[in-house]
């Protein structure tokens, strides 16, 4: 594309006659969702000789855009973690051979050796940074991987066009992006108002009120839409609750595998569900024009987050309902309940200085992988990742490729750790959070409040919210609904996922087959990571070719021979939800005596609901770390209730520490490795065993015992726990 043609396009899209010289090269475009930002790079990309590389953090967006471009006959591809290594390699080869015009790529790929190798030979015409706010720590979704993209852009030749786009940027984020990308950048900023949005805030005084309102009203809202919850566990609880009330809802979160995620995303596109309950990861970049509602059960971290998240709805400009719940009940310290979670995220965003110094000290001794650093410091993976990103950011350490793995190296002449910048950031984020609470309490038109926060000060007559022309929404919490809710809670049991998988690639077809036995009478077979069939007890071989059958049979044989016979179990409740956690805590740590009977009732209920039809030979329980017979006494009662003999012969053969001391799974695994024994090993052979424990956390102990019992010949091991933790909340 020459400049003349480009300027015709520019005139059409922006009403600007010509590029300034520097404009032709680097542009930051801030335009609201639905403006058509992607066309602004897709069109020129088709005109260039070479390839346009688009760095995008959104896998779902990549998929949609590539599909749409291919439909128009434009050769577009993507490279990301959703594809197999082979698929990504093939894409890279096509790009090298000039068979790709537009290549979407996740910024994390910048760390991939094959991609880096390919970049040495690719004919590049333009670089696009999508969702450019993610390169700013002041932005609402900072991604460390984008730091490298910025460095790259700084190094790109001045004559190579670079376009950065975002829907949301305050002045501060804008100037941060401008500064980072480099001086010769022109910013184009559009209007942000979305006047088809009907904005509501519902103030409540308990989590129950939110659940009840949704159950009562969701089916009365037009169309299909999204519910965003603050935590992963809540996506599950809300979705199950809605389903319990015959509302067609499903949960979606980062814990799901790629296929499940893809399937749910397709379901969203096809309006298969009334609502998808999700963390805010879903919907970013999904190209669906008619998301009719977005409901938040938790406040986002700032008005920018909120604007960005609701911006995914109503791109067709038709009326769209936007609801935000806020639990303003104050605790004994006078803090509003729904303020706590986002505040805790901000306060806990960074580990303590001591932890940083511990990591630095370890790196001064030797270069370490992420895993090595976790072992050396006994810190959680999440914390190590934050520390890693900050150390790289401050030039204290660098991540270096060492063969096939990556290690962190301390740098000669590195500066001292700067914690002041962390504190500044924390204060800024708290201010943003307070502005979000300001949205709850404002009497201004709500869209005006958001636009002003985003530094879009247009003089428009804002309306369409419960502060202007719309009625306030309220909750009616009746006795019947409360009863329904407690019934639901007593019938809802979290799964303990511990079953193992076996995979093998069939040659020469190159098809990867995977076996998983999630429960004693179910066999899941995956073909290239897609669920091929879920079979109860016996595999129906009619679906397989002769060759496939032979291969899968031998795979199943080796799975049974080598892998643990432990299957997925069940817990009576989540630890942090309902009163189960506090009851356990009283008994375990406050000398509250045996576990109360309601826990036994609940656990039995969970057991019968899931395993009521199975026959078992014996009940075992996890021997305690310290003296104390809580679990033993519980197991005795449990065993007598289900009329299965109990055995006390599972013992510890060496001292272990309490698992909660260890912050990451590697150390937890090491803590319990070879720590158990069974006193009469011959008893185990061919048995179906129930393995009881009080709290299920990482699962390392249960899995270790499962391994032991499998080695002794156990046929099946089913783990049962009273409570399952969510992200280490003991």
């Amino acid at each position, binding site marked *: 594309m020459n400049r003349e043609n480009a300027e015709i396009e520019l005139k059409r899209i922006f009403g600007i006659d010509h590029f300034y010289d520097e404009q032709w090269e680097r542009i930051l475009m801030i335009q609201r969702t639905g403006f058509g930002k992607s066309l602004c790079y897709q069109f020129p990309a088709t005109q260039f000789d070479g390839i346009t590389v688009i760095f995008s953090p959104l896998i779902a967006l990549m998929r949609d855009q590539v599909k749409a471009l291919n439909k128009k006959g434009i050769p577009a591809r993507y490279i990301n973690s959703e594809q197999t290594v082979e698929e990504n390699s093939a894409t890279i080869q096509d790009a090298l051979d000039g068979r790709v015009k537009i290549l979407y790529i996740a910024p994390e790929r910048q760390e991939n050796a094959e991609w880096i190798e390919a970049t040495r030979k*690719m004919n590049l015409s333009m670089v696009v940074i999508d969702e450019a706010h993610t390169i700013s720590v002041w932005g609402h979704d900072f991604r460390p991987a984008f730091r*490298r993209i910025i460095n790259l852009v700084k*190094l790109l030749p001045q004559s190579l066009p670079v376009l950065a786009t975002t829907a949301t940027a305050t002045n501060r984020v804008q100037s941060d992006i401008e500064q980072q990308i480099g001086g010769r950048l022109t910013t184009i900023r559009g209007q942000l108002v979305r006047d088809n949005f009907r904005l509501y805030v519902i103030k409540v005084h308990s989590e129950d009120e939110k659940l009840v309102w949704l159950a009562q009203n969701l089916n009365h809202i037009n169309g299909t839409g999204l519910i965003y919850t603050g935590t992963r566990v809540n996506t599950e609880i809300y979705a199950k609750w809605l389903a319990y009330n015959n509302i067609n809802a499903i949960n979606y979160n980062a814990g799901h595998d790629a296929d499940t995620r893809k399937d749910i995303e397709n379901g969203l596109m096809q309006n298969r569900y009334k609502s998808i309950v999700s963390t805010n990861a879903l919907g970013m970049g999904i190209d669906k024009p008619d998301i009719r509602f977005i409901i938040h059960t938790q406040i986002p971290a700032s008005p920018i987050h909120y604007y960005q998240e609701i911006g995914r709805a109503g791109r067709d400009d038709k009326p769209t309902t936007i609801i935000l719940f806020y639990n303003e009940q104050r605790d004994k310290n006078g803090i509003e309940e729904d303020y706590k979670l986002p505040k805790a995220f901000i306060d806990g965003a960074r580990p303590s200085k001591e932890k940083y110094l511990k990591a630095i000290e370890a790196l001064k001794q030797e270069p370490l992988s992420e895993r090595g650093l976790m072992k050396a410091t006994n810190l959680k993976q999440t914390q190590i990742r934050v520390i890693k990103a900050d150390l790289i950011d401050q030039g204290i350490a660098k991540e270096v490729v060492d063969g096939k793995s990556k290690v962190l190296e301390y740098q000669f002449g590195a500066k001292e750790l700067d914690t002041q910048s962390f504190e500044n950031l924390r204060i800024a984020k708290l201010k943003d959070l307070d502005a979000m609470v300001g949205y709850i309490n404002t009497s201004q038109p709500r869209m005006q409040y958001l636009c002003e926060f985003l530094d879009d000060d247009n003089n428009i007559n804002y309306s369409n919210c419960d502060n202007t022309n719309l009625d306030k929404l309220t909750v009616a919490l009746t006795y019947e609904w409360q009863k329904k809710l407690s019934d639901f809670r007593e019938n809802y049991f979290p799964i303990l996922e511990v079953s193992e998988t076996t995979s093998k690639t069939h040659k020469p077809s190159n098809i990867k087959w995977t076996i998983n036995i999630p429960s004693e009478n179910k066999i899941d077979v995956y073909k290239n990571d897609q669920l091929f069939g879920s079979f109860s007890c016996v595999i129906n071989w009619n679906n397989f070719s002769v060759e496939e059958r032979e291969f899968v049979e031998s795979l199943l044989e080796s799975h049974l021979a080598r892998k643990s016979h432990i299957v997925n179990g069940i817990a009576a409740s989540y630890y942090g939800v309902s009163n189960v956690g506090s009851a356990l805590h009283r008994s375990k740590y406050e000398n509250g005596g045996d576990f109360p009977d309601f826990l036994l009732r609940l656990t039995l209920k969970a057991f019968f609901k899931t395993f009521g039809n199975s026959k078992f030979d014996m009940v075992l329980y996890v021997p305690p770390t310290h003296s104390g017979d809580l679990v033993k006494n519980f197991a005795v009662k449990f065993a007598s209730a289900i009329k299965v003999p109990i055995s006390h012969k599972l013992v510890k053969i060496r001292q272990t520490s309490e698992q909660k001391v260890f912050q990451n799974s590697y150390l937890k695994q090491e803590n319990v490795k070879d720590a158990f024994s069974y006193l009469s090993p011959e008893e185990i052979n061919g048995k179906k065993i129930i393995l009881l424990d009080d709290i299920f956390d990482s699962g390392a102990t249960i899995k270790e015992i499962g391994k032991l019992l499998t080695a002794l010949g156990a046929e099946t091991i089913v783990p049962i726990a009273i409570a399952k933790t969510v992200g280490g909340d003991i």
Partner: protein
Amino acid sequence: MMKNELTYWVALTHTPKIWTKRKNEIIVYCFNLSKTIADFFESENFLGMELKHEEQELLSQTKKELANYAFLVEELLNQGYSIIPITSQEYSPTLKANLKYNAPIILYTKGNKQLLQENAIAIVGSRNANDKSLLFTDNVAKKASSERKVVVSGFAKGVDKQALDSALNYKGQSIVVLPQGITTFASGMKKYYKQIIEGTVLVLSVFHPKSPWSVDLAMARNTIIYGLADEIYAAQSDDKGGTWSGVTDGLKKGRTVFVRMPERNEKCANMTLIEMGAKAADIEGNPIHKTTEYVLHEQSCQVVAEPTASYQTNSVDKQIVDLLNKGEYSSKQIIEILHLSDFSTQKLSQRLSKIDGIQIHKIGKTNKYSLKTKKQSEQLTLSL
């Protein structure tokens, strides 16, 4: 210098088929115009510099690959490597002064760059060094470390490895010059990790960061080792191979080279090098001043019986240079005047191309050879 120019520097450096000398001329040209290498590539006509058609094509090809080089540079910086262009304050002044227009365009390093600014000695020698040579190396490294001089060596077996380990053992500092690209040295980086992060070791390479080890690079690397040092110590040399060609080349360029005085009956070519003008040094690395001392040695040293071919041809080089000092000659004329009966014109042109400071002037189909004018080399020192 702006970080974002590094892409252009790396691109220029790895443009194939253009000699370093020519690339340095480009840099000087830009410098004289107060322009950057970025300006050179971004301008329509390479800032109007007079370039051969072939050079234009090569540089235009590089220009197309600039974005690719950006990816490479980002990767290197991300992994903690430094990229030091010849115009940078961080570049070794010693290297620049010694190699002049042949100084590498960029240095890739990891570790304490300050070591490039310190006084330095190089220790070179055979991969299969004997105990005496290793002792000599240890002594020299010890002395250098006590004088706070940096020890430059090449990370080969034998003398090189001893030089590095001794320098570190005596709490000294060391520059390791790699015979390969800097990213292909993972095992060594790991081994000397602590020394690198403490600042006592600098790893340096002048080759494409992804190049694997090769004999050619190992030979080319010697020039850099010599260039980085103020003094050169050779522990042990055979009559061919890296140390030999490095020392003879150093002597040709007028560098001071100390060679360990060999023992009686020792199988090595040290004595030959001393005869060729290298300074003799005792086992402690101290110069031996009395000529008689090594005359005695020479008589008892049986290995060094025949003067080698290189020695002879080296004197041919000198005759040629003396002749060209007087004017411009074709290779045929040179053969006639100097009575070089064993040389064909073709063989002589090859020889001439290896002698420093000689330039070719094409007149019709004939190549005329002459010495480069002093003015050119002065300009280099001024501008670089």
